[in-house]
């Protein structure tokens, strides 16, 4: 098979759907796991960072506090020393010699002391220690009253510290512990102890030295003005040049701190790097200690911790993503490929080379994906094989359905068996009614000689075929050489060259048993799959055989039925014709052929128009008949008159559309039905009603007319006229009465309740009486001829008189005004025959058979030669028959002769005799 274009397409993966993608779902699960982890890590990181910050700040503050405390103590002690010294009398009295040892002792005991001096009340330096070469400049005698601390000293009695400044005496940065000197409320000047700020700084430098330079550790002591009183920063000369500078030069934000009595921690950028400051006030002097260190260095641990945390987190995420990527590439992608491949299986032909290569690559993998790919490859092979089987079975089904010739179908089935199972020899063995044995109905690959001789008798129970049929399941011989049941067929198997054989019974129901038999040249055990497949073939073969058989039977039945229908339609009294849409006759029956004066052969295929034309040639009024047919074509039915064999007949024509069983129009049908007899009956019915109405109403009309005439009060009639009217009324009443009697008689006759009371009667007297009572009366036209030896007759005189009177009246009425009315009687065998004749126009031959029927009148419609209900002859026949006699019309050349017979001996059961 040529690859279809779709095969060259690369594997078409399923449309990406985030909800259904395993990769995305795994990623989502991973994210679910990792995101809280990241959140928690960041949270703890933040927590730890804050904690570490706090720790660093606390350490700074603690240090600042320690320094502050120590400085506080140290400065406090200077204030104490100043107070004590200020209390000395020598100092108070400003006795230089006395002060000198005191000052010296102090300076010697406290190395920080830079200068001890005494100002008088006017701010003039009285004395300072040390002197001479120990100081840069002696300032004795100089006025220091401009100093702020001097101004302050004049206002207080308590010792205090001055602002930091450069001492002019020692040319060093100092701060002075000042003790105002008061004697009896009089200001006597002050005692000052200059404390070298460098000395303070030295202590701070020692503290700072404990820290690395990277920490950028600085400690400042600032006074309330923000001036740096002591600094851990060593100046170039080692004397702290930065002393007495303002801390705002470091960072303006620090300006708010001096003078504050609160402990504060700040993070400020100083000279391009973040610096962490801790400030603690020194309460004794309202100074403060400012500890600063590089934030970077201080937070070095924190940063290291955070870096480690972030690194770990990044590693987790990256590892996760890498894992997902690997999973995606190694598992999900191949799975998707396999899914796409599997979707393709069984559709649109074989896979393309790319797809197959992909599958092969995957199948080489040792892992589960490889296993899946291998399974898929195997499944594909299985499915392809199965589809091949199905395809073959489908072809077989088509073959079964394609023809009703079972031999062709069986040959095709065997060809498919050979193709699908690769067998070289196979056969369908079925019961043959004629040969009374199982024979090969069809075979393939078998030698003709073998196939011909493959005849299995009904009793050959060692035959595998027969056994399989009896067991009604497939049976096999895997090896004819070793199977003990195969001894009988072994020679044949060797001769034909097969070693294994399988027989599958066909599930036939309406046809004789049969089996599909397959032969292999080698020993072979048939697998369940093979047996299943062959069973399917066997089913198809059974279907083919049964179809053919059933069709043959149904065809016979159909033909039989068609023959019957044909016979029925051909024998119909109605003429029938079926035409196609073009007006060609498809079918017409014998009656139609007769009507059109054509042979059956001429009819078929003829034009309907030609046939109708031939029929209408018989119509007395062809134009009217054609109009009627046109009407029938529209309305369905019409009536057409035809003169056939000299007789006028009426035909009802029905024209109708003919459809087949599915409602598809085939053409039109025509049925010509002879309704002459029906019309005759209708006419007679109408005539009967008209007759009875007329006969009853005419006397009634006269009676009513004359009665109303007599009753009318606008005219007075002569008595003569009145009598005449009454006479007419009387006559008409009699006439009515007679008619009613006739009707009653007839009703008795027809109902079988007529009573006959026979008695010997004199015919001559009876004739005379009948003639006398007749209306109209024959008068002298009556001729009676009776033989003298006429035997007596037994009959009911009332009935026979009615018979005679009716016949005489008819003869008078229909014979014409001049015709004689002859009545004669003769004995014929045991019957007396009476004849009543006239010489009138006679009864037309076509009416003769009907004249004795009730209400039958020779004329019809409203024209009437003579009055009469048409009951007379019917009543006559009824009475005569009731006596056991007969009545008939005797043919005459001229005139009419009605004869009736009466038995001379009365019948035994003459009292009641049904008509």
């Amino acid at each position, binding site marked *: 098979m040529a690859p279809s274009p779709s095969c060259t397409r690369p594997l078409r993966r399923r449309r990406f759907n985030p909800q259904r993608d395993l990769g995305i779902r795994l990623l989502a699960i991973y994210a679910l796991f990792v995101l809280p982890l990241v959140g928690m890590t960041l949270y703890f990181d933040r927590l730890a960072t804050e904690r570490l910050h706090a720790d660093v700040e606390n350490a700074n503050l603690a240090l600042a506090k320690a320094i502050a405390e120590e400085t506080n103590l140290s400065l406090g002690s200077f204030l104490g020393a100043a107070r004590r010294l200020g209390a000395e009398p020598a100092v108070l009295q400003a006795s230089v010699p006395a002060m000198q040892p005191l000052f010296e002792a102090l300076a010697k005991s406290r190395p920080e002391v830079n200068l001890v001096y005494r100002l008088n009340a006017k701010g003039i330096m009285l004395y300072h220690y040390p002197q001479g070469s120990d100081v840069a400049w002696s300032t004795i005698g100089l006025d220091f009253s401009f100093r702020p601390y001097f101004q302050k000293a004049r206002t207080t009695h308590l010792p205090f510290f001055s602002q930091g400044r450069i001492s002019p005496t020692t040319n060093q940065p100092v701060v002075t512990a000042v003790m105002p000197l008061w004697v009896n409320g009089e200001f006597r000047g002050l005692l000052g102890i200059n404390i070298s700020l460098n000395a303070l700084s030295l202590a701070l430098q020692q503290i700072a030295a404990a820290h690395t330079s990277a920490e950028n550790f600085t400690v400042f002591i600032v006074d309330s003005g923000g001036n740096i009183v002591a600094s851990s920063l060593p100046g170039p000369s080692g004397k702290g040049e930065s002393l007495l500078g303002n801390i705002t030069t470091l960072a303006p934000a620090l300006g708010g701190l001096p003078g504050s009595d609160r402990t504060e921690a700040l993070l400020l950028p100083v000279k391009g790097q973040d610096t962490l400051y801790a400030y603690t006030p020194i309460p004794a002097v309202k100074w403060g200690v400012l500890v600063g260190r590089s934030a970077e260095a201080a937070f070095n641990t924190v940063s290291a911790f955070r870096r480690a945390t972030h690194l770990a987190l990044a590693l987790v995420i990256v590892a996760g993503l890498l894992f997902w990527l690997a999973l995606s590439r190694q598992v999900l992608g191949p799975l998707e490929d396999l899914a796409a491949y599997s979707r393709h299986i069984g559709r649109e032909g074989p896979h393309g080379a790319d797809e197959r290569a992909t599958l092969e690559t995957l199948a080489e993998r040792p892992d589960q994906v490889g296993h899946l790919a291998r399974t898929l490859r195997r499944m594909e092979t299985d499915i392809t094989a199965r589809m091949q089987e199905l395809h073959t079975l489908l072809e077989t089904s088509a073959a079964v359905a394609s023809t009703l010739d079972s031999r062709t179908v069986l040959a095709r089935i065997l060809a498919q068996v050979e193709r699908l199972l690769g067998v070289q020899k196979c056969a369908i063995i079925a019961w043959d009614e004629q040969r009374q044995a199982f024979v090969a109905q069809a075979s393939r690959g078998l030698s003709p000689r073998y196939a011909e001789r493959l005849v299995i008798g009904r009793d050959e129970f060692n035959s595998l075929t027969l056994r399989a049929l009896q067991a009604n399941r497939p049976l096999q011989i895997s090896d004819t050489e070793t199977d003990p049941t195969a001894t009988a067929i072994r020679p044949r198997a060797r001769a034909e060259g097969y070693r294994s054989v399988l027989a599958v019974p066909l599930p036939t129901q309406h046809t004789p048993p049969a089996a599909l038999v397959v032969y292999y040249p080698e020993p072979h055990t048939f697998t369940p799959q093979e047996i299943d497949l062959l069973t399917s073939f066997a089913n198809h073969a059974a279907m083919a055989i049964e179809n053919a058989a059933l069709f043959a039977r149904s065809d016979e039945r159909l033909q039989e039925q068609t023959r019957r229908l044909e016979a029925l339609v051909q024998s119909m009294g109605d003429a029938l014709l079926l035409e196609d849409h073009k007006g060609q006759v498809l079918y017409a029956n014998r009656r139609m052929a007769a009507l059109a004066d054509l042979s059956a052969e001429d009819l078929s295929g003829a034009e309907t128009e030609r046939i109708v034309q031939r029929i209408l040639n018989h119509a007395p009024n062809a134009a009217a008949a054609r109009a009627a047919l046109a009407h029938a074509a529209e309305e369905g039915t019409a009536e057409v008159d035809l003169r056939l064999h000299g007789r006028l007949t009426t035909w009802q024509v029905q024209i109708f559309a003919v459809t087949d069983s599915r409602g598809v129009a085939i053409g039109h049908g025509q049925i010509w039905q002879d309704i002459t007899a029906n019309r005759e009956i209708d006419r007679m019915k109408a005539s009967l*009603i*008209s007759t009875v*109405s*007329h006969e*009853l*109403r*005419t*006397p*009634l*009309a*006269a*009676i*009513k*007319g*004359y*009665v*109303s*005439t007599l*009753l*009318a009060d*606008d*005219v007075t*009639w002569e008595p003569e*006229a009145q009598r005449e009217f009454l006479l*007419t009324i009387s*006559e*008409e009443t009699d006439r009515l009465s007679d008619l009613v009697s006739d009707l009653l008689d007839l009703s008795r006759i027809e109902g079988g309740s007529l009573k006959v009371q026979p008695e010997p009667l004199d015919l001559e007297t009876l004739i005379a009486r009948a003639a006398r009572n007749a209306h109209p009366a024959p008068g002298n036209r009556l001729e009676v001829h009776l033989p003298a030896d006429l035997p007596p007759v037994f009959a009911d005189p009332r009935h026979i008189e009615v018979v005679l009177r009716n016949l005489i009246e008819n003869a008078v009425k229909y014979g014409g005004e001049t015709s004689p009315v002859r009545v004669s009687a003769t004995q014929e065998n045991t019957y007396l025959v009476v004849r009543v004749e006239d010489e009138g126009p006679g009864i037309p031959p076509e009416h003769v058979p009907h004249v004795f029927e009730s209400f039958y009148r020779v004329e019809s*419609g*409203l*024209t*009437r*030669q*003579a*009055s009469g209900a048409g009951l007379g002859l019917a009543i006559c026949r009824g009475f005569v028959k009731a006596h056991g006699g007969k009545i008939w019309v005797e043919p005459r050349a001229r005139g009419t002769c009605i004869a009736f017979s009466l038995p001379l001996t009365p019948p035994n059961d003459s009292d009641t005799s049904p008509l």
Partner: protein
Amino acid sequence: MEAPHPTVLVVDDAKSLREFVRRNLDVRGYRVVTAVNGADALEKFQAHKIDLVILDLIMPQMDGLEVIQRLRLHSNVPIIVLSALGEENTKIQALNRGADDYLTKPFGVGELLARVQAVLRRARHTPSTQESPVLVRGPVVLDRERHEVTIEGRPVNLTPTEFSLLEYLMQNTGKVLPHRAILQNVWGPEYGQEAEYLRVYIGRLRQKIEPDPNNPRYLRTERGVGYSFNA
């Protein structure tokens, strides 16, 4: 109201009935001519100036229907049919051929005289002086004085009853006239139930005046009610 001595031709094969009619009409001042069958009737009709024919339907030689048909070839003389046949079909047949009225046997003398007078009244029909002698409704023109009807100038031959019917309908152009009203106004107050008369007469009028009698333009049937004239 009655013209002096109208001549009535009575045709019946039954002597008793013929005599009954003859005697009654005679005594009431009509001149009566009798005939015993159709052929006789046609002969007598030719021989006398007949104002009214009373005709039995069932007669020997030539039935009543044929007599009507032949009379109608030349004459609009009023015809009353007598018959024992009471079926509507027969009545309609007779009316269709041109009979003006129908009496079913048996009948009393009063009924006979009433019908005779009604038919003669219709035949004599004199227009009242207040009314215009000529009715014009579209192309239909009815001249009462000259007893003439023309459609688009083409004369139409109508029997007296047909004329009276058309006149009544034209007088009430556009109005739907119930069966009973038409019968009482045209045939006479003693009528009212004879719807089949109307069917026949409207049919006959349509045949005579309608361009297409199957799709009437002037005479419309108002189903279940009556008829109307529309110009």
